[in-house]
C-alpha cells in the first residue's frame, strides 16, 4: 500500500533482457534477430530510394516533385528502422515470458507508405512530370 496516495514511480530503466523470464530456444532468438536485420535492410533500401529520387532524377516541371516523392520514402525508412528495434525487443520479451508474439504493424506501415508514395508519384508524373530533353 503506497503512502500519500500517489502512483508508483516508473522504473528509470528497462530491465536488461537477460534478466527477463527464461532463455528461449536459440533458434527462436536468432530468427527474431534475422527478422530485425531484414527490416533494417528494408529501411535502408527505402532511404536509398528516396535519396536517389530526390537527387538523381531529372528536374520535374513541378518544382518540388522529386522531393515530394523522395522525402516520404526516407521518412518511412527512418520509422521502420526505429520500429523494427522495438518490435525485436517486444518479441524477445514475449518469447522469454512464454507469451504469444505481439501483432506487428510494420508490414502495414510499409504497404501504406509505399502505396502513398506511389500515388504521389503518379500524381506528380501527370501534373508536373520530368522536363523534356
Amino acid at each position, binding site marked *: 500500500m503506497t503512502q500519500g496516495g500517489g502512483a508508483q514511480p516508473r522504473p528509470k530503466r528497462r530491465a*536488461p*533482457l*537477460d534478466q527477463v523470464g527464461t*532463455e*528461449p*530456444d*536459440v*533458434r*527462436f*532468438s*536468432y*530468427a527474431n*534477430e*534475422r527478422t*530485425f*536485420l*531484414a527490416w*533494417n*535492410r528494408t*529501411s*535502408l533500401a527505402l*532511404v*536509398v530510394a*528516396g*535519396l536517389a529520387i*530526390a*537527387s*538523381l532524377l531529372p*528536374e520535374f516541371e513541378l518544382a518540388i516533385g522529386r*522531393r515530394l516523392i*523522395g*522525402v516520404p520514402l*526516407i*521518412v518511412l*525508412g*527512418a520509422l521502420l*528502422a*526505429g520500429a*523494427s*528495434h522495438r518490435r*525485436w*525487443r517486444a518479441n*524477445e520479451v514475449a*518469447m522469454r515470458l*512464454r507469451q504469444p508474439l505481439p501483432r506487428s504493424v510494420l508490414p502495414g506501415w510499409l504497404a501504406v507508405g509505399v502505396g502513398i508514395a506511389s500515388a504521389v508519384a503518379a500524381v506528380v508524373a501527370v501534373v508536373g512530370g520530368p522536363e523534356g530533353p
Partner: protein
Amino acid sequence: MTAPSPWEPALEEEELPGLAGERTDLAWNRSSLSHAVLAAAVVRRTWSQNDDVTARVVVLCVLLAGAGVSLIAWWRSQRVTRNAIDGSGLIDEGTLRHVTIGALLTAGAALVLAALPFEE
C-alpha cells in the same frame, strides 16, 4: 494430451542450433555489406555534386555511420555462430541498438541531402 508449448524445441530436431547461427551470421554479413555499400554510394554520388560545406559534412556523417554500422555488424557476425554452439551471449541488445542508431543517422543525413539543392 496437451499441445506442446510453441516455445518448446521440436521433439525431432530437424536442424542443430549451429545452422541457425550460420544463417544469422549470413544475415549480419548482408546487413554489414548493405550499410557499407549505401555509405559508399552516397559519398560517391553526392561528394562531387555539392561544394557546400554543410552537404560535405553530412556526407561524411553518412560515411562514418555506414562504416561504423558495417564494422559492428561484421563483428557480430563473427560471434554469432560460436555463441549458438556454446550458448553464450545469445542476446546482444547493444549491437542491435547501435545498428538502429546508425540507420536512423543515415536516414537523417539522407533527409538533409534530399532537401539541399544539387548542382546538375
